[in-house]
């Protein structure tokens, strides 16, 4: 399929726009590199394969015909023109345009437009950037989102919304991962003001609103924890302490900080190992941000601390599992493609639940809670599920 070049906005001769080059490395790129950390060795998919997978994933379960679709070329403009009256730059990615003012973010595409609250948009954008577009679909809300094809990414508007699909006003465009990552990272940095941390709970951070004032680059470029075997082992992700700048969170001050007794015979120091996972999690300075702490081949323990609302609605391309370690989280579960409500799931400490591969979910944590997200990072899974070779439900009871 031939890639079409989207229309280019004419640059202001008075300005100095930055033309993004997807071939350049992103200076804000996290240390773990260009691939999701749980996809070691995965290769960028050829465009035709990712397109067919995108089509099968987007078509499954939905009777609505799709709207418009274009192939992402090199058409992106980062910071086109001078900052607007509120001090924020606008962005173009293919046929999508992005701008913000004091309160809102405005997204445009050939067949429609959308308005979102700036704080909600930035929180979602932060996760999408930090997680390298994660597994499957990252819905920013009921309209805008991305689909990860592990080498390319779909940016869509309305594609997983029944009303938009039936009206054939949805839109989707596929981009090389480096290109969309660079644009999103630049947008996140420009639009995040000093004092606002998109990773923090609302009670822990300042306002996202108002005219542009400074930035918070350290917060939006945090390095994601990705252990290769287990946190605390020599050469692997380090433990957390007051000395490393990880103080116990205000809502976990009653969590025991004792470490296990580890007695290793000489020469077995790298084999005899344990650490206080609950204490480690109590010192996390982010919310809704799974990080890898323990690995068994493709089996990844990705615990996270949750408070308030998950800023995205996650649509799986594989089954994932939750084990509630502490406190309570309430989950809204919807059909992945149409958004129709399917279930409400309440999880208390010790509860285990699968999230099937045909749903999307959003969580609500009234008090900071510890959740173990268990992932299978096998790179073959999305294709096997999208083509019906594996069921969307994990167990046949």
């Amino acid at each position, binding site marked *: 399929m031939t890639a079409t070049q989207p229309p280019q906005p004419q640059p202001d001769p008075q300005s100095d726009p930055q033309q993004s080059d997807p071939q350049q490395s992103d200076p804000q790129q996290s240390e773990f590199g260009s691939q999701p950390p749980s996809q070691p060795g995965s290769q960028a998919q050829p465009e035709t394969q990712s397109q067919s997978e995108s089509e099968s994933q987007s078509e499954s379960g939905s009777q609505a015909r799709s709207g418009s679709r274009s192939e992402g070329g090199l058409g992106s403009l980062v910071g086109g023109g001078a900052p607007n009256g509120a001090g924020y730059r606008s962005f173009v990615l293919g046929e999508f345009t992005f701008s913000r003012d004091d309160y809102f973010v405005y997204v445009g595409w050939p067949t429609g437009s959308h308005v979102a609250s700036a704080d909600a948009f930035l929180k979602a954008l932060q996760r999408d950037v930090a997680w390298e577009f994660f597994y499957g679909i990252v819905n920013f809300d009921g309209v805008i989102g991305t689909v990860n094809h592990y080498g390319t990414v779909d940016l869509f508007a309305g594609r997983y919304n029944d009303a938009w699909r039936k009206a054939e006003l949805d839109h989707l465009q596929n981009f090389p991962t480096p290109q969309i990552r660079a644009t999103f990272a630049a947008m996140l940095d420009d639009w995040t003001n000093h004092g606002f941390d998109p990773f923090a709970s609302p009670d822990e951070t300042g306002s996202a609103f108002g005219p542009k004032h400074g930035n918070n680059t350290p917060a939006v470029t945090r390095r994601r924890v990705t252990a290769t075997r287990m946190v605390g082992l020599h050469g692997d992700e380090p433990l957390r302490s007051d000395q490393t700048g990880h103080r116990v969170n205000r809502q976990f001050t009653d969590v025991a900080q004792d470490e296990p007794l580890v007695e290793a015979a000489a020469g077995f120091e790298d084999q005899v190992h344990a650490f206080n*996972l609950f204490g480690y999690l109590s010192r996390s300075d982010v919310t809704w941000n799974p990080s890898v702490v323990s690995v068994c081949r493709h089996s990844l323990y990705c615990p996270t601390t949750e408070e308030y609302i998950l800023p995205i609605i996650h649509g799986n391309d594989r089954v994932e599992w939750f084990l509630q370690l502490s406190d309570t989280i309430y989950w809204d579960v919807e059909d992945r493609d149409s958004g129709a409500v399917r279930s409400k799931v309440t999880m208390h400490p010790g509860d285990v639940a699968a999230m099937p591969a045909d749903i999307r979910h959003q969580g609500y944590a009234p008090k900071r809670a510890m959740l173990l997200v268990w992932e299978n990072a096998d790179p073959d899974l999305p294709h096997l599920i999208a083509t019906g070779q594996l069921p969307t439900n994990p167990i046949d009871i």
Partner: protein
Amino acid sequence: MSRFVTRFGSLGGFEKGRVEVVDDDPRHYAFSNVFEVALGSGPWEQVAVAQNRQYVLEVVRAEGTSGWRTCGHDQSVLVMDGQVTVELAVPGPGQGPAAGLDGSVGLPGGVPGGPAMGRVVAGRGHLVLLPAGGAYRMVAQRPGVLVVQTIAGPDTRYRWAQICQTS
């Protein structure tokens, strides 16, 4: 003093959540609770509570002294309740896990023929590495609950219909 109280579960006290169906089947979620599973398990039984192809999470009721076991790949043990001592040793000749066999198995011969590697004493919230190729056994003075990250093996037990919410 903080007004926030962090709630954990235990064999002696837990509250189980549930799936409230709107337009769905609760069996799709394989919803269970590790403490409830352990209450109904015998000591050291390995009951699957989560499965993703060949990978499983096993709930183990830790009570007394387990037999020596071995495994060809890394595993991890998360203590959800109680305290457990994990003893580690090098398997002797012929005691190592069979090539290509996944999941843990009882150690051939029952007792490791190699030197001791060390031990870990772990309480609630502690995550312990069970290194690939090693032999291990666990001791719990009082009943506790463990979650093992591993690959399904010959000793993995499946009781989905008994442990999961089905309606």
